């Protein structure tokens, strides 16, 4: 019996060693490969989760690529940006800073039940120390993501091998459908009002997500990149409950970062796909506005962002 268990343990050790070796090799190959070129003329990128991925149609925003993806926490945005900066020179980074990004709910999306959404495609770029932070919280989730990630990298290297950004980080998810009739009254729906109370009662401030937002800010500073926060319009029921805390954290933790707040942007119900997300109509309106704002207040600085917003809204 002892011999049997001893051999099982040795085999398990060798197997783990093999898996770690594969992860390290994957990281080595994927990090160094030349698969992360942004389109020529790109000056900035947008990072964030579904609010941003739905709200900004980057074909209408000159020099900016929208790399936001649904469910993406700042943890993953940080490593995405880090990898992009290895291969590209950027002038600006726009990070979507929305109300639900400041809550622990956003932490849970990094390592909780949605871990399988982002971790497999980001794993090669995450350092072992940072990986440990989420492995402690959800070891099974990380263990399940490892083979998916290895297979993903294997497929990319053997079949595609062109541009990882296009194949794995591209934003092509702006919904074209219109908010359905039942949800049409996004500003007065009783269910939304109940949600508002729920958000307020279940709120606690994020640790992990905000830590990595600070890391993004530091990385931008170290690389002389201008960092802006963006907030896309959502129903007031998602905004109001956390509004004071939202601004407190912004003022206290990120005093140097300017918020481009489009929450007051005049929109119709048929600009929404649901109370939290723009559809293509809404995205086009917002994107044209953002394009003009970048042209006059970011790229040229002919007027301040607040002046531009006050003048146009």
């Amino acid at each position: 019996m002892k011999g049997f268990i001893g051999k099982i343990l040795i085999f398990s050790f060798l197997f783990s060693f093999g898996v770690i070796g594969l992860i390290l090799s994957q990281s080595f190959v994927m990090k160094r490969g030349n698969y992360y070129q942004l389109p020529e003329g790109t000056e900035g990128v947008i990072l964030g989760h579904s609010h941003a991925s739905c709200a900004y149609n980057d074909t209408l925003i000159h020099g900016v690529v929208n790399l936001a993806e649904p469910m993406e926490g700042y943890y993953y945005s940080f490593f995405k940006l880090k990898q992009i900066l290895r291969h590209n020179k950027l002038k600006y980074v726009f990070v979507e800073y929305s109300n639900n990004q400041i809550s622990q709910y956003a932490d849970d999306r990094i390592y909780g039940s949605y871990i399988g959404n982002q971790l497999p495609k980001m794993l090669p770029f995450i350092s072992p120390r940072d990986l440990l932070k989420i492995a402690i919280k959800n070891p099974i989730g990380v263990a399940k993501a490892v083979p998916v990630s290895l297979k993903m990298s294997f497929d990319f290297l053997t079949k595609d091998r062109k541009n990882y950004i296009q194949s794995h980080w591209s934003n092509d998810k702006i919904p074209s459908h219109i908010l359905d009739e039942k949800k049409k009254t996004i500003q007065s729906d009783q269910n939304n009002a109940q949600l508002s109370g729920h958000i307020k009662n279940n709120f606690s401030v994020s640790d992990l997500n905000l830590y990595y937002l600070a890391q993004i800010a530091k990385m931008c500073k170290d690389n002389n990149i201008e960092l802006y926060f963006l907030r896309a319009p959502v129903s007031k029921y998602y905004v109001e409950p956390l509004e004071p805390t939202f601004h407190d954290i912004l003022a206290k933790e990120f005093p140097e970062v300017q918020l481009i707040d489009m929450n007051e942007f005049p929109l119709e119900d048929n600009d929404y796909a649901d109370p939290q997300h723009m559809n293509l109509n809404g995205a086009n309106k917002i994107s044209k506005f953002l394009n003009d704002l970048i042209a006059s207040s970011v790229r040229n600085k002919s007027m301040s962002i607040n002046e531009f917003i006050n003048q146009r809204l």
Partner: protein
Amino acid sequence: MLFNSIDFAIFLPLVFLLYWFVFQKNLKLQNALIVVASYLFYGWWDWRFLSLILFSTLVDYGVGIWLSKTETKRKRQALLWTSILVNLGFLGFFKYYNFFLDNFQEIFRLFGMEFRASSLEIVLPVGISFYTFQTLSYTIDVYKRKLEPTKDFIGFAAYVSFFPQLVAGPIERATNLLPQFYKSRVFNYGQAVDGMRQILWGLFKKVVIADNCAHYSDMIFNNHMDYSGSTLFLGAIFFAFQIYGDFSGYSDIAIGTSRLFGFDLKRNFAYPYFSRDIAEFWRRWHISLSTWFRDYLYIPLGGSRGSKFMQLRNTFIIFLVSGFWHGANWTFIAWGFVHALFFVPLLLMNRNRKNLEIVAMDHLFPKVRDLISIGITFVLVVLAWIFFRAENITHAMEYFAGFARNPLSMPEVRPVLIFTFLAFFLFIEWLGRGEQFAIANLTLSWPRVFRWSFYLIIALVCFIFSGQEQEFIYFQF
């Protein structure tokens, strides 16, 4: 709980350690642990249906005890029918109720009558066909006085619910498995190592072969109108390997796991795709079910005795019932019927027991004649699988009709990696075709470093190239 899940990877070592280190000295406690572990294993999926297993266990245990005390033929028959009605009643209700209802309604409609009854939203309990047949074998064997009824309830409950084979077999006979619960078990190093090897090979079959083939077979079967005839045929081949890898992989893991606990289960597959005719295929495919039907249905019907007509009748009955056992859908019945048709010529020519030995035994390569026979048999089996995989008969017919679309063109789907895995898989299976499982003796003569490297590579391939985690197909039966 799935064998290819992290839950099972935690569950198995825990039960193993408790079994051999904590309860090692007490047989009753070991058996009780098996019952608890098995109920936990099953309840992980849906604890509500544990009551069915428990009820079935109580009924058959009670019937066994009463049979031992009753000598009157009529009473013994009544007890046997009680067990059959309870077990098949559960099976009939959960698996076939809606099927019969829908078909009755159709028949009434054909005659212009209205038969109103609404179908029920019934969840099919995982593995009900397997444990039902297993418990039935106990009662029938006790009734036939082939087996002494057990008085050990815990041992009997462990036999009915034994977790390695509870949900998808092999369907164990009471005569083989039940006595193993009475004997004290001693850890056997060789048996355990052999079990681990079989688990490893079963995992490879399931997660690498079956789950990856599933991706392509699903894609082709679900969009069959969009593909050429050659791709449709390839899709059917993918399904053939999916179902073989899935089911025989499950059986390997089940048998291997049982060996870790000192049990020997029956072999369920013996390289069926190397069969030279359909009769040989059925001696090598899902052996525990085929032999169950042979012993409890075919032989009582008269078997191969009597006139050719009787033989044909019995053959069709057993194939149709076997098809229907798989599911409440006409597609399964059609699958059984097609196999019966393939079998008939062999029966009429008395060639159904021709290929009893292992193909090309003691040779590396088969004779050309054998190779052609294997190829033809494989194609027939693949064509029959189309009925098995199809959603309904119309789907199957459309699939067959699709063969006429550019049958000789290059298939649109060409997954090189899957072809590589299949080639490796077939090569290893061919080398090991004389063994209980393909890698049973394959590496034993190799130096340790090569042997361990081989196992390690298989394990890593399973880890990396596992397709999307899928339930075992036979869970639905």
